[in-house]
Each structure stands twice: as C-alpha cells, then as structure tokens.
C-alpha cells in the first residue's frame, strides 16, 4: 500500500508462531468519507479500555470522499505509541489499493479481506481471513443506503473476535461513539455482533496476534492534540481567537469554539471571548496583533500556507512588541503539496519569519498533554516577552488520537507581563515604552483605553526611540535592535526547558522534538536491546535553546538530531547556536515522506552512521 515507504522484510514473524500479545499494528485500508473513522475509533478505544497502551494514526488524502485512506492502530504493551513501520494485521476494505496493500505486507502478517476480492490468491506467506461483507451487512441492515457505513462495523466485530477483544468494551466504545444517536448505535452494534458471530462460526484463528487485559491505561484519557490545545487555550484564559480554516489546524479552533460555548459564557449569557473566522490568514494575524496590543490574550491557528501569509505581520509584531500566540499545525509543503500529511517543515522558516532581522520564540509540544500545558505557557511567555510566540505542533499530533494522563490544572496565575495602569503612571510620573528599565530587554507598556493622559504611546515598527517617538537616528535604531537581541537572549531561560530523558553516558546522544519523541524513546530501547548500545536523549521543547541543550551536546561525543523535514532544519538552528568546538559532533537524521516518523527508521539510521 502506498503509505509505507517500501515493502518491509519479514523479521520476527518468520520464526515460530508464538502468541504475540499486546504488541502489533492493525492497518485499516479504506476510502475516506466511508465512515470507517467511527469503526476505527471503536477498535482503538476497546483496546485502550482493556488497559493496553494504544495509538491510532490516520493517513488520509486531500479530498473529501472516495480516495484511499489508511488508519493504523498500534497496541503496545511496552507503551510505544509511535507509528510502527511494519503492519501486522491488515483490514483491506479498499478494492482499489487492496493489491498493493497486501503486496507490501511482511511475510507472516495477517490480511482480512472482502471475500469476492480473492486477495488470498496473491501470496501464500500471509494469514488470510475472508469476510463476506455484503452478505453479513445485508442481513443486519435492511436499509441499503446505510450499508456502506455499517459495513465498517462488521470488521470491528471480526477483528474483535480474532484479536480476542472484549465485546463488552466494544459495545461501550461503540455507544460512546454514537452518543445520542441511539438508532445508529443499535444498528452498528448489530453489525459488530454479526461480524463477531461470523468470525466465531467461520474463521479459524491462524495468526499469533492477540490482546490481553492489562492495567496500563487506568484513568487515562484519549484526545487529539488540537482538542488538547483548544482546551489548554481556554484554561489559559484566551479571549480573542481568530482563524481561517486550513487543514490540519481547523479542528483546533472548531473544538475551541465548542469548549468556549460550553464553559466561557457568563451568567448573563454573554460570551467572555470573541472568535472570528477571518477572511484569510493576513487578517487573522492582524486581528491577533490588534487584540494583543489592546491587551487581550489573543491567538490564531494555522498551517504552512497561513504562516507564509503571516510573514509581514509577524515582523511587525516582533518590532512593535506585541504578544500573541500562533499555532502552526505543520503539514507537508504548499497547498498543492501533501496538505494532509505530517511534517516538521516550518521550523527554520518560523524561527525568523519576516524580512529584516527578526526572531521568534517557538514552543514545541510532543504530546497532547503538552499541547494543553504549552497553550498556557505560550500566553504567559508572549505577554512576558511582549512578542508573538509560535507553538509548533504537527498534523500527527494535532489530528490523531493519543492516550494521555489527565491534564494538570494550571497552578500558576496568569503572567500578564509588564503592563502599567493609570495608578502606576500616577506613581511613576511617566514612562518610556521601549526603555530597558529592568535590563531584561522588555519595556513597560500601557493598554489603549487606560484612563490617564500620559498613557498613550505610538505603536510603529523599528523607527522609534525609547519613548516610541518617531526617529530615524542610527543610534536609536541600533540601540533598539540590541535591546531586542537582549530580550531574545533572555527568552532562553523563560521558554519551557528541554526534557532530558536520559543522560547517563558521555558517548552518543539524540536530540529530537515534537512527535519524533515517541519514535525516539522506542529507538532507545531498540538500540539497547538489539545492539547493546545505550544512548542518551534530550528532547527540545522550545527555541531559543538554553544552556542545558549546549551542555548536553558538550558532554557527548556524537549527537543525532532528528528532524521530520528534508533540510535538517532544527539541526541547522542548533548548529548556529552552539559552541564551535561542538559542531563536529552533530549528526542529522531526516525523515520526510509525509508519514509520521517511526523508531525503526531512526534506529537503522543511527546504526548505519555509527558504522555498526
């Protein structure tokens, strides 16, 4: 099938067929718009509710209906939640890709297929299970219009039986999925049962994959990164949200709208927020800056094309020094690239977004829980530093479902930064907007509407002196630019600090960020268990980098930087930032085909670069 880079070679499955418990991947190959998303979510939740760590990833096309889509579910008793490169269990629902889907499986894998397609004739080294979908569906669903949808729940039943899933959990998951749509729930539950019954009656288990209850997910939640970011933004106290729809960021704001309507309408029925669908991204960021200037916690969410359109305003925000939060849910290349595939491709561009000398702090969540917490961090930081802050998520994190510990309520009060009130002005007798009073590069600001005759300052780019008066003097300009540099230096210590996942050797280290994290933790184990190599790991959580990053590199011999982009963008940012004598230690690992990175790719790459 078209979402693996190449046919993978059989390894473990070639051996004796011992039971493989809670450690495999399912791939459902289907077409989008066929309603299989519900079925897949039911499968995911069932495994999750059986206490088994699980993750799900949707590889969908850039259209609305009818094109090939693959959904993978990985169960992992060890808790690995990155994409698994190898597919163990294929549910081939899409006749158009079925041949290729089957051909690219590793020997020993399983394929569930629509009986009439006779996929079993393609290979002899797989376990095939035929399912007569039409027949089963027709029996449980008299209304022929609905059969296309219900069909999917049939495979849920079959898979449940084959993988030993608890049908009680299937039913719960299914009823949660259809919530108030009682009739649909009933119909689908019948389909699932029919699938289950068919499998019981007609299929003989011939593969080793199976699920057993564990207790690794108790109390945990399942959510996608965009919803987590939405929730985090609400708890951060966002008041102005602007957006222009774009995949994969739209659901962030759409979920936020739901949350805000539910929890941020006052007792008088009035909203304590404004959410505006702007006419485009230029307007969206313009509104964010206007609102941030006027004192609101304002944000927008977008993806690459929107980021490009925001370039001019991003620079203005940097120079005028206005807080604002921009979520970039990164995806592949231009609008007519692979807009529904994941990437970490905007890192270098965002770091200095806009003409002239500009630089922007970036926060980089790796998990849904960081989407939640960094939403808050981003506002605090933006207001503290008085500058636009970018949160660099990606499609994999934003649009896929991830399990997580429940989120922590923000413990610290909002940090609204250096804002002078009318009383402050009375006390101080005046202020100079861009004076570095505290030596941290951050001046004091007043908000429009402050009831004081000395409150006003004139907001414009870099053509001003400390008092925000018009100036073209070379010294005023250079002084201001140097203060901005100081401010950015200062940001190093204010941004979320890296997570040092492991640091107990002085030999080889890995630096990664964002969603690559989940593949890297698995790589650590692979390197140790398969090659006996123990490797350290630091996860970046923000740009600019702080001393811990420098130290980590300084104390290792070789450091691999993992990027999900072609141009090794984070690798470059690190290279520019560290001590010269450490640069030679840097190695780069790049992954850029639109699929989420997997551990095997990283492991193989490291092993090959290490010359092992």
């Amino acid at each position: 099938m078209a979402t693996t880079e190449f046919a993978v070679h059989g390894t473990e499955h070639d051996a004796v067929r011992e039971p493989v418990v809670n450690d495999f991947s399912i791939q459902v190959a289907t077409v989008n718009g066929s309603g299989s998303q519900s079925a897949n979510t039911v499968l995911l939740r069932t495994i999750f509710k059986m206490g088994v760590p699980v993750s799900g990833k949707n590889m969908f096309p850039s259209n609305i209906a009818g094109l090939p889509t693959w959904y993978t579910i990985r169960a992992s008793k060890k808790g690995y939640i990155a994409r698994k490169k190898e597919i163990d269990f294929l549910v081939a629902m899409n006749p158009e890709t079925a041949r290729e889907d089957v051909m690219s499986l590793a020997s020993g894998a399983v394929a569930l297929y629509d009986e009439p397609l006779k996929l079993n004739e393609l290979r002899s080294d797989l376990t095939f299970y035929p399912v007569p979908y039409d027949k089963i569906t027709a029996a449980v669903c008299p209304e022929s219009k609905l059969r296309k949808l219900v069909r999917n729940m049939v495979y849920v039943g079959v898979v449940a039986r084959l993988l030993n899933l608890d049908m009680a959990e299937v039913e719960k998951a299914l009823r949660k999925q259809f919530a108030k749509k009682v009739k649909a729930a009933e119909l689908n539950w019948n389909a699932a049962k029919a699938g289950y019954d068919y499998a019981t009656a007609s299929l003989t288990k011939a593969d080793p994959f199976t699920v057993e209850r564990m207790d690794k997910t108790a109390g945990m939640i399942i959510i996608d990164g965009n919803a987590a970011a939405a929730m985090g933004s609400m708890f951060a106290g966002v008041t102005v949200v602007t957006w222009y729809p774009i995949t994969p960021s739209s659901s962030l704001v759409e979920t936020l709208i739901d949350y805000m309507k539910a929890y941020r309408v006052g007792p008088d029925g009035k909203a304590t927020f404004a959410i505006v669908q702007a006419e485009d991204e230029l307007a969206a960021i313009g509104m964010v800056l206007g609102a941030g200037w006027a004192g609101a916690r304002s944000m927008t969410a977008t993806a690459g094309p929107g980021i490009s359109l925001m370039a001019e305003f991003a620079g203005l925000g940097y120079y005028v020094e206005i807080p604002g939060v921009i979520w970039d849910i990164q995806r592949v290349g231009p609008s007519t690239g692979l807009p529904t595939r994941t990437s970490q491709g905007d890192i270098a561009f965002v770091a200095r977004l806009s003409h002239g000398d500009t630089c922007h702090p970036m926060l980089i969540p790796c998990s849904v829980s960081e989407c939640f917490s960094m939403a808050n961090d981003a506002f605090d930081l933006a207001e503290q530093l008085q500058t636009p802050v970018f949160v660099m998520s990606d499609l994999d994190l934003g649009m896929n479902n991830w399990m997580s510990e429940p989120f922590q309520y923000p413990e610290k009060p909002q940090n609204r930064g250096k804002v002078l009130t009318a009383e402050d002005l009375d006390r101080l007798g005046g202020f100079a907007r861009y004076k570095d009073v505290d030596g941290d590069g951050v001046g004091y600001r007043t908000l429009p509407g402050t009831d004081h005759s000395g409150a006003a300052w004139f907001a414009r780019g870099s053509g001003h002196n400390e008092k925000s008066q018009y100036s073209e003097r070379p010294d005023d300009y250079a002084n201001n630019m140097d203060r901005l540099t100081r401010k950015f230096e200062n940001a190093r210590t204010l941004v979320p600090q890296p997570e040092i996942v492991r640091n107990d050797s002085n030999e080889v280290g890995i630096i990664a960020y964002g969603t690559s994290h989940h593949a890297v933790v698995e790589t650590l184990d692979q390197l140790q268990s398969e090659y006996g190599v123990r490797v350290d790991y630091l996860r970046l959580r923000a740009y600019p980098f702080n001393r811990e990053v420098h130290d980590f590199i300084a104390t290792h011999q070789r450091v691999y930087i993992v990027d999900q982009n072609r141009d090794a963008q984070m690798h470059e940012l690190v290279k520019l930032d560290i001590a010269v004598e450490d640069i030679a230690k840097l190695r780069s690992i790049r992954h850029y085909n639109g699929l989420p990175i997997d551990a095997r790719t990283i492991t193989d790459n490291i092993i090959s670069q290490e010359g092992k």
Partner: protein
Amino acid sequence: MATTATPQPKINRIGLTVLDYRGGKTTLCAGCGHNAISERIIDAFYEMGIAPERVVKMSGIGCSSKSPAYFMGRSHSFNSVHGRMPSVTTGAVLANSKIVALGVSGDGDTASIGIGQFVHLMRRNLPMIYIIEDNGVYGLTKGQFSATADLGSKLKTGVINDLPPIDTCALAIMLGATFVGRSFSGDKKQLHTMLKAALSHRGTVMLDVISPCTTFNDHEGSTKSYKFVIDHEEPLHDLNFVPHFNEIDVEYDAGTSINVTMHDGSQLRLRKLERDYDPTNKTEAIKRIMESHEAGDVLTGVFYLNTTAPNFLDMIDMTDRPLATLPESVTRPSRQVLEECMEELR
C-alpha cells in the same frame, strides 16, 4: 490649571481644551489635504467631548496613514502595515469594545493592496470610523496611480489612467457598512458635521474624503486636484448635526429636511438641495453614486445611513466588559470544569 488671571481657555463638556486634542507637528507637505482632515478630526472629537484616552487611532502605510501622529497625541495609535489596518482595528475593538476606533487610510492603502480587508470589514459592520484620505495616488511612494484614480485622470508625467476607479462608497454600501459618505478636505463645514455624526454611530462609518495631494496630484488634468473638486463638487444635501447633549434647536422643516436619530440620541439633519434623497435606501444610494460618475460630478454627503442593522459586536453576543482586562477568575474555568472535560475523554 492656570492660576493667573489670563482668560480661561474654552473647554468642552469633559473639561478639555482643544489643545488637549492636538498631536505632533505635521511632516506632511504644506497644503496637503490630509492636514486639513486632521484639523477637522481634532475639532469633531473636541466638540463631541470624546476623551482622547478612549480613542485609538489606527492606520496602514502612506502619507495619510502617518497623519494620526499629527492629531490627538493623548490617544493610543497604531501605524501598522500597508493595507491591513482593518484587521488590526478589528482585533483591538474585540479586545476592548469600550474604545472609540478611528481608522485613517489612504486610497492606495484601502483600494489597492487593502481592498480585501476593506470588503470584509464593511461586511462585519464593526463599530469604527474608517476615513479614506483619498488623493487618487500613492503619495508616499511619489505619485503612482491608486485604484481610486478616475478614468482619464492624468499624472504629472502625462500618463493617463485607463482603469475604472473603485468607488469605495458604493462598495461599502453594497457590502454592509451602515454609515457611508463622501466629503472633501476643503469642505470644512460638511466634513466637520459628518465626523461629529460619525461619532454618534455604532457600526462601521466609512467616509471617503477627497484630499488633494499638492505634491503629486494637484495639477491640471487630475480629477483629485483642489480645483477640480471645487469645480465639480455636488453636495447631496446640506448637513446639520445636533449632538445628544445639546438642547434640540428649532429650525427643522420636515418638508425640506430628513432627520435621523443616531444611536446615542444625536440628530443628523439632511436638508435637501436639488432632489429628494432617502439616505436609508441602499439601492438608490448606489444608483445615485454611479450616476454621478457618469456625470463627472464629485457627489458628496451622507449617502447611506442605517441605524438599525446589528453591528459585529451585537452579532457575536460578547460581554460588555473589555475582554482585555477580564480577570483570571472569569477567563480561566475552574478545576471542576477540567475534571469534567477529562472524564468526558476517558
């Protein structure tokens, strides 16, 4: 406060003198229409007794967009980027619905690069006053045609404009603005009256003010020169304005005038000059404007006025308190809410 015996300067209803509404010394060219508009703005805000601290002056880029530095120095001001003042203003008004937003733009800033944001601002009927200081050229980049240049208008270099002008008033009316008019920087009384009325309106006020560029577009052959506008101005009506805080004066004849009650209770009176004109009829307004183009007139006055349409803040049903300063207790839901959300996801 003066303690000597010098005569007290005149003050407005909130106790400020006109000096409190002044700004920095202008750096625009002598005779530039934009300077005259600044003067009218000062007078209108002073007379209406708007506290300068409540005002935000918003602009894009251009000579016109620089002018906010030259009036009302006690107001916050944002000189943003070219053509995008509408979005910045929208953000600011959302963040603080109590502020009075005055946008100053140029014809290039609005009708060329900025027409997209202009269109969408008008649709939203965001409460603000949007002034186009319209000289038909890009002043700050030295005199190229903008998109409001009239057909056949000539540049100093002899180049003739062959693209039809965008009539920002007709456009604004069609799109949803609720107070739309055209005036002339040289028409002191009309502009002054329109600005005062604008301050009584809650919705988008869009005023296209012809404002000759003495340096690049005030020559023979230009249709945005002082001479041309003076020769061709055709006012739709004679305007009078009675602010809500003044006693209503008498001279009002329902036969020759239309009286419009503004949102704040002020009265705008339109005394008919030539023919009847109903400023609440969209279709007629656009028709009349298009006719004036064909006739080669510079039609001025309040073209359209709608005091009943909801503005953007009404539509989104937002709290009255400025969002910017809502306390954390209001903007951060409780722990219970988080727990509720978590439970939903288990």
